[in-house]
């Protein structure tokens, strides 16, 4: 009855997140999917990792691989965690799918001494061009759902996110934009170009 762990290379944005996390820390991964990041962090950074995942398949995959994951929802379940319970709370590619991104963000920096948030940048030049040329809701390889059945209900741009953090008094410690080919680009000091060229962004935040 042994479930062999699959150990393979993780997505490039997950790798950036993993690189921001210190070894032996306590990590909560909100929207952890099939547990790829948690699995990586547990085995290569010896973190004490926990996860929250909405989908039953994701939860079952995680737990049956020995990861500590609960079936839950970023919008409703974060409220039950105490302040400063984790060194890092990770929200990767999930913010845009939450009902109340601002509340979720507030909870992330409350529960975690640091929060790491990654999201697709809706101001990427290709999406801007798509909207301009086609006059329709942009779709791409990574954003492939139709507007009427996408789980992504709160898209934002890198600039939107920077403005929101500033408004909430959240400190951005590190921010990286990722181009289509995986090239990393610093957001601080180059917001305009990062917002235009970055396909996705990763932010390291603290209250």
């Amino acid at each position: 009855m042994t479930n062999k762990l699959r150990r393979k290379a993780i997505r490039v944005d997950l790798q950036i997140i993993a690189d921001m996390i210190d070894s032996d820390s306590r990590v909560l991964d909100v929207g952890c999917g099939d547990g790829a990041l948690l699995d990586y962090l547990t085995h290569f950074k010896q973190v004490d990792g926990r996860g929250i995942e909405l989908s039953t398949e994701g939860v079952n995959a995680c737990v049956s691989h020995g990861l500590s994951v609960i079936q839950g929802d970023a919008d409703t379940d974060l409220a039950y965690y105490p302040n400063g319970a984790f060194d890092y709370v990770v929200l990767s590619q999930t913010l845009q799918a939450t009902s109340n991104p601002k509340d979720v963000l507030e909870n992330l920096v409350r529960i975690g001494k640091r929060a790491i948030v990654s999201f697709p940048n809706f101001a990427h030049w290709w999406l801007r061009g798509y909207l301009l040329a086609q006059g329709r809701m942009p779709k791409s390889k990574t954003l492939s759902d139709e507007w009427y059945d996408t789980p992504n209900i709160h898209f934002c741009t890198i600039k939107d996110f920077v403005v929101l953090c500033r408004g909430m008094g959240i400190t951005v410690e590190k921010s990286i934009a990722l181009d289509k080919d995986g090239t990393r680009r610093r957001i601080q000091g180059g917001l305009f170009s990062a917002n235009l060229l970055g396909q996705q962004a990763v932010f390291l935040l603290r209250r």
Partner: protein
Amino acid sequence: MTVPETLSIDTSALPCHYVTLGAEDPLRLDCGTELGDFTVAYQTYGELNDEKSNAVLVCHALTGDQFVGDTHPITKKPGWWEVIVGPGKIIDTDRYYVICPNVIGGCMGTIGPKEINPATGQPWGLDFPVITIADMVRVQAMLLDHLGIDSLFAAIGGSMGGMQVLEWVASYPERVFAALPIATAARHSAQNISFHEVGRQAIMADPDWRNGDYRLHGVRPCRGLAVARMAAHITYLSEAALTRKFGRRLQDREAVTFGFDADFQVESYLRRQGGVFVERFDANSYLYITRAMDYFDLEARYDGVLADAFRGARTRFCVLSFTSDWCYPTEESRRIVRALNAVAANVSFAEIVSDCGHDAFLLDEPEFHRVLAGFLDGAADHRGLPR
């Protein structure tokens, strides 16, 4: 329905272990009564390792007993969790030392209302003190002391077994490495108390109950106990499962008979469930154990803050529920999970899709078993138990 008028089963010599506890240090029950020199019947499987680190306590539910992984000596049916407990199975008896005691108040060899009260030389009947889930766990802790086991690798149980698991972590957090409360609740709901009350009233309304002294009169309240079982059994299933298994199909007949015979298959099934049950279970035990479940409210014990029951626990938790369980619905498990999150406990929680209702935890549910196996393997790695 076959109704045995007397129960002649000798539960003092079943193929399991017996131990006398409380001789020096009596058991102090929640109700205030003290019990010394009482018997606990328990079953074990596998071998305790040299470090005594591989013990798994399986806590049985209301009508379960210690025969979790081998053929039941009375019913001759497979053990109630034989799909999970055994060599090479999820609770692998080649790897773990499995202990399953019959609870206090039970009727399979552990002290309960059908055993002899040393003060009178007669069966305890209603003189038996009212017991609680915490009392069950105290007895189990005494058993572990007797076996020389300081800390369990895991405590696992469904339904009332899950209540005992929660009680274990609340009372003896340092003695439980991993806790698996399955299809359970931290407090018994008004609906569940209601169903239990129906069952108890059915037993007490049986003229053969004789105010609990039926054994003195050589009779048994079989009809009342069977009705209690039938009513309870419905709560363990789901409408979907009943419809799938029986629908409105008729029992060995082409048309309804315009009478009160078991026309429908589902009636026949329930009657059979009731009939089989009374052959192995004691009516007074049913009263006492349902009462213990009704009294269970971990939250109230911690002044309404369930999280305080788990504060400081380093236990790894795996909370599981089933979608169609309306007896212990997922929301009850979620309450437990939220309380655990509030103290940043190490917790896994999954809701398993099944149409089998509360009983799903006893059945061959592949997804449930996959999650259970994964959690246990992960926990065993952290415990340093060799594969």
